[in-house]
């Protein structure tokens, strides 16, 4: 903190060296400058974290609260809806994230090839979904994937399917639809990370591999992937967090109905975040229980991130 001040006071070095109380006063200025950030951080970050932890030990009916200790957490294990949410979240996480990351990696490797024409156009095109609003693209997909929507009509007219696929009306297909949508939205985003990572991979490696007779496949697995490892870890951690907090897509895919009882057919799209929302705003407002669910997410994200770092084995 104090490091700022000597610089700005170079002219007065003599004075500065001698006068200790002045140095201390500079220290105070340092603290004052930092204090704004610290106070803001404390109010808007640390306080909510601590407070929500306390809240998670309460059972509430609106403002009528009572202390229940760890009962909220115990209740979670018997709460079918929560367990469904957990299951769904993990289905999305286990299936969608690897597919998306692999796809992004392959696309990045292809688009990094300098001999490809219109590279920029392709790169932009694939990245573009990442700038669309989550709600807008979900609604668009919902229209495309409706029973007599664009996708079914296309598949029918190409004679790939005989009967329209009940995209959003069957638990299995509903999940598939959300995964397709998420892959469309996020692949380009991850691809950009890989592309930028690839800029740091020296061409000499590929040249040397070429001379040694390594195929493109071998180059991909033995040069590209190892060189990108830190970035792969980063994207997989980010995707993990993103998937565990999945909210917009399931919410918007399922929203509506005359009154929309479940999130997707048979709650097939219910994720933990959506459940938190429902606990707060759709059901009897039990903010305490909702806080407990959100701490489960925090806990899971922490565990999964640790596992990913360990598996990636970054010993440095």
């Amino acid at each position, binding site marked *: 903190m104090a490091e*700022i001040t000597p*610089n*700005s006071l*170079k002219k007065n070095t003599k004075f500065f060296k001698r006068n200790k109380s002045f140095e201390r006063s500079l220290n105070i200025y340092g603290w004052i*400058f930092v204090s*704004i*950030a610290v106070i803001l951080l404390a109010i808007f970050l640390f306080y909510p974290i601590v407070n929500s932890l306390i809240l998670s030990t309460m*059972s509430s*009916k*609106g*403002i*009528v609260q009572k202390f229940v200790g760890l009962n909220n957490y115990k*209740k979670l294990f*018997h*709460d*079918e*809806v929560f367990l*469904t949410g957990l299951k769904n979240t993990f289905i999305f996480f286990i299936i969608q994230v690897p597919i998306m990351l692999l796809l992004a990696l392959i696309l990045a490797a292809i688009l990094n090839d300098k001999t490809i024409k219109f590279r920029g156009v392709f790169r932009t095109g694939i990245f573009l979904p990442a700038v669309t609003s989550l709600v807008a693209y979900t609604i668009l997909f*919902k229209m495309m994937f*409706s*029973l007599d929507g664009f996708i079914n009509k296309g598949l029918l007219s190409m004679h790939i399917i005989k009967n329209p696929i*009940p995209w*959003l*009306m069957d*638990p299995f297909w509903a999940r598939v639809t959300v995964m397709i949508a998420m892959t469309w939205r996020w692949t380009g985003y991850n691809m950009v990370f890989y592309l930028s990572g690839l800029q740091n991979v020296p061409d000499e490696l590929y040249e040397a591999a070429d001379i040694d007779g390594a195929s493109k496949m071998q180059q991909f697995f033995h040069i590209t992937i190892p060189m990108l490892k830190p970035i792969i870890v980063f994207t997989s951690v980010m995707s993990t967090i993103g998937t565990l907090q999945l909210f917009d897509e399931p919410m918007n895919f*399922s*929203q*509506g*109905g*005359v*009154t*929309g*009882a*479940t999130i*997707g*057919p*048979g*709650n097939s799209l219910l994720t933990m975040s959506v459940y938190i929302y*429902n606990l*707060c*705003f*759709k*059901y*009897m*407002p039990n*903010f305490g229980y909702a806080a407990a669910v959100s701490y489960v997410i925090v806990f899971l994200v922490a565990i999964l991130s640790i596992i990913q770092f360990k598996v990636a084995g970054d010993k440095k």
Partner: protein
Amino acid sequence: MKKRMLSILLVMVLAVSLLAGCGKKETSSNQEQQQQPQAPAEKTGKITIWAWDPNFNIAIMNEAKERYQKENPKVEFEIVEMAKADVEQKLHTMLQSGVKDGLPDIVLIEDYNAQKYLQSYPGAFADLTGKIDHSKFANYKVSLMTLDGKVYGVPFDSGVSGFFYRTDYLAQAGYKPEDLNNITWDKFIEIGKKVKAKTGKAMLGFGLDDGGLMRIMLQSAGQWYFDKDGNVTVANNEALKEAVATYKKIVDAGIIKKTSGWNEWVAAFNKGDTASVVTGVWIVGSVKAEASQSGKWAVAPTPKLNVSGSVNASNLGGSSWYVLENGKSKDIAIDFLNKIYAGDNDFYQKILVDRGAVGTYMPAQGGEAYSKEDAFFGNQKVYTDFSGWIGNIPAVNYGLYTYEADAAIMAVMPDVYSGKLTVDAALKKAEDQLKNQIGK
């Protein structure tokens, strides 16, 4: 060095603007507070209202505002339109946090949620007992906003349900309007099969995970997911068993067009793909939106369940106005609701004609608009019919957990459709889940 100075400057500018931001807010709220003391005496002030649906609630509120302002020109109105979910979310967070600034004076709350708000936020809503004459409103509406003998809201629109059908399709299948009066759901399915066979059209647009129709069936039998004391009655509820079985029969009969979400559901009958809709009266606007179908629609009473006590009248949705205890213009807000919503007969005629809003203010239902023939519905006096049915709607206790129950039951429905679970087993599963969730 220059850079550092610059960044320090930047931080300071940010900090100052932040503080300035805070200050600004305070002054504005001070101004509003200053207005408050003189408000009740001279009837000046500002009523803030939160509601959803620009074509319905908001438009109706604007009409009410104009009527009130004729008498009280000094009262300002701020009618804020938000999505329904946003109104609920905002209200929950504000009431939960305990802040009093920024609360509206009047808020629209869906009837299913009424008790939830009243019991979750004691003291947040103004007690209107004696300030509004509740005896003039439909009984079932008043009972759902009563807590410990006190009535907290002003009943607004009715969700009285009806069986809307396409006369041309039904005629093709050999049914006359008389054949459709006061039928049971079993008869409905039978008719649907014939319609499907003769016209190729589905009888209903149907969301497999939509519990709306089930609530119509339940209330027609005077039952709900909870009994009068709020205890869960799911597994041993005859009406509910019958309703779930009927859902399965409807799906199995192949008389539905499966839809997902509101838009598809509305599109199904707007496009002429389905022969009927069974839902609340508020759908009239959406049905009429397809002008080319004018004269081809009619309304019959809601089908009833095959259980004792079930009647051919029910309800789906509907909402009411509530006054916030801590609102800045509470007294004017109450006066406003009392003058217009609980006293202006003409107002109810106007909103019925303009918006198709069926109020639950009983004196208004003798008005001329209610007895008008509607060309869209083949000159049927639909609103006379609807207001007649309103009186027959069984009053039920919606309790605090309607949406939890709805979700718990609709979550087991896929297994019921597929035959994996019997109706009894499914309801048992739903009840266990529900009890765990609400902690009983």
